[in-house]
């Protein structure tokens, strides 16, 4: 038998990396950038200018003009280039200065940083890489068939700025089985993680909670919630989420993504599309996407509340019913490491299946108590 010294455990906090993850980051719905004017996005510790040319192609450059430092987000789009408000230098989407109207020629080295972009399924992505290499082909974001199909609704999109928190906190959610009960009002019944390569997956099934009103198709009985959710790279998660009712399946795709503003703040975004149920109007389907999105929003808001007040902890103390926090962070570390230094252990396949026996017992008791208390309170009135 080992004896453990009876002293308080100390929270350890390593310095936060002063770099930003390598990979695709979603900046939101691409149509929002297609109004012909420049947009400002603060991300990766800097300011970016985002605009669309006449063909609707979206470009992303560092916002500060390499001439005298003018702010290109205050400029205008001219002939598909971004024109600086200070002296009208014209910058192309490839990062090269195309023209200086008052000069005979453009000086050498007139090139600024440009971000590779991906405009796919209605979303705009930028590739961030501190080493400056082009996007890694195997890390392409998968196509989402529902996003461009008439059988599905359009994106219902949410975006929140979160201050005082590093984006690792949201990534931790992938493995944090227990918080789904306490923070997101779910009742997990099955939970498994698989990490492999640049993908981190969470398989979770859940049941209805009698003490929480989960949006349901009028009067239908919710049998099971099945979710398969994966991060493709450091920041973009696709969740294939199915609500199984006795009347049929309600299918949805939930996006959960973020981009860092700096090392202590980030923008959290989530979007939802639902498959239009048969015999239901488009308006009704859109309304159910919104209802579901708003429900999910409440959960995220509770996450935010937690993140903004919690400590950053690099030595979490875990019980056996917790998910693989350390192994997830080991996986996540690959995106903060130069490609040449990525270790096999960061990308090797790892599986972790949780034993849900105790959580199920404890939580059904808690839910029953909540219902009893609610009924009692209702009876007293």
């Amino acid at each position, binding site marked *: 038998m*080992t004896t453990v010294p009876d002293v308080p455990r100390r929270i350890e906090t*390593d310095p936060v990396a002063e770099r930003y993850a390598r990979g695709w980051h979603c900046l939101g719905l691409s149509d929002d950038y297609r109004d012909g004017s420049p947009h400002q996005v603060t991300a990766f510790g800097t300011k970016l200018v985002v605009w669309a040319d006449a063909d609707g192609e979206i470009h992303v450059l560092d916002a500060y003009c390499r001439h005298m430092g003018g702010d290109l987000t205050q400029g205008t789009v001219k002939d598909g280039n971004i024109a600086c408000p200070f002296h009208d230098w014209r910058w192309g989407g490839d990062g090269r200065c195309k023209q200086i109207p008052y000069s005979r020629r453009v000086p050498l080295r007139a090139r600024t940083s440009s971000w590779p972009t991906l405009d796919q399924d209605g979303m705009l992505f930028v590739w961030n890489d501190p080493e400056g290499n082009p996007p890694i082909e195997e890390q392409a974001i998968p196509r989402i068939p529902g996003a461009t199909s008439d059988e599905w609704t359009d994106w219902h999109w949410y975006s929140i700025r979160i201050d005082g928190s590093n984006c690792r906190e949201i990534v931790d959610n992938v493995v944090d089985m227990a918080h789904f009960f306490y923070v997101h009002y779910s009742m997990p019944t099955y939970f498994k993680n698989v990490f492999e390569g640049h993908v981190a997956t969470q398989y979770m099934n859940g049941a209805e909670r009698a003490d929480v009103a989960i949006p349901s198709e009028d009067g239908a009985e919710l049998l099971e919630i099945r979710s398969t959710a*994966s991060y493709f790279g450091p920041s973009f998660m696709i969740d294939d989420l199915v609500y199984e009712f006795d009347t049929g399946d309600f299918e949805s795709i939930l996006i959960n993504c973020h981009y860092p503003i700096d090392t202590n703040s980030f923008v959290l975004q989530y979007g939802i599309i639902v498959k239009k149920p048969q015999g239901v109007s488009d308006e009704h389907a859109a309304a159910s996407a919104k209802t579901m999105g708003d429900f999910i929003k409440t959960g995220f808001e509770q996450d935010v509340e937690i993140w903004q007040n919690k400590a950053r902890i690099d030595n979490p103390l875990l019980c056996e019913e917790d998910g693989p926090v350390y192994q997830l*962070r080991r996986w996540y570390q690959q995106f903060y*490491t130069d490609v040449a230094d990525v270790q096999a252990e960061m990308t090797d396949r790892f599986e972790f*299946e949780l034993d849900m026996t105790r959580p199920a017992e404890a939580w059904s008791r808690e839910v029953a108590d909540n219902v009893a208390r609610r009924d009692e309170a209702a009876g007293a009135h």
Partner: protein
Amino acid sequence: MAIRTTTPGNEKADRPEVRPDVRLETAPMVPVSCESCGITVEARKSSWEQTSIQWHGDLDGCLERRAAPPPTIAGTAFRGCTALRNTLSHAVDRGALPVLTESE
């Protein structure tokens, strides 16, 4: 992340430091070879229902993996190998793979 900069400002000097799972301090993963394909993984079971599996390198040696459908939009379609799962049960029966709740 656990990046320590030895030379301030020099990103190349950043070396990730990945901490091991605290739960492994008292009960480490143990190597097990699959009865079907021979691949060696490390496994750990805190109870009958809980399983951790660490694979190494490429998985082409695993027959079920090779037969698995391609990944979907929600990630890998290969949840795990049933032959390996059976191997782990046999290892538990033989006493080669401890189940933590059983030793309490």
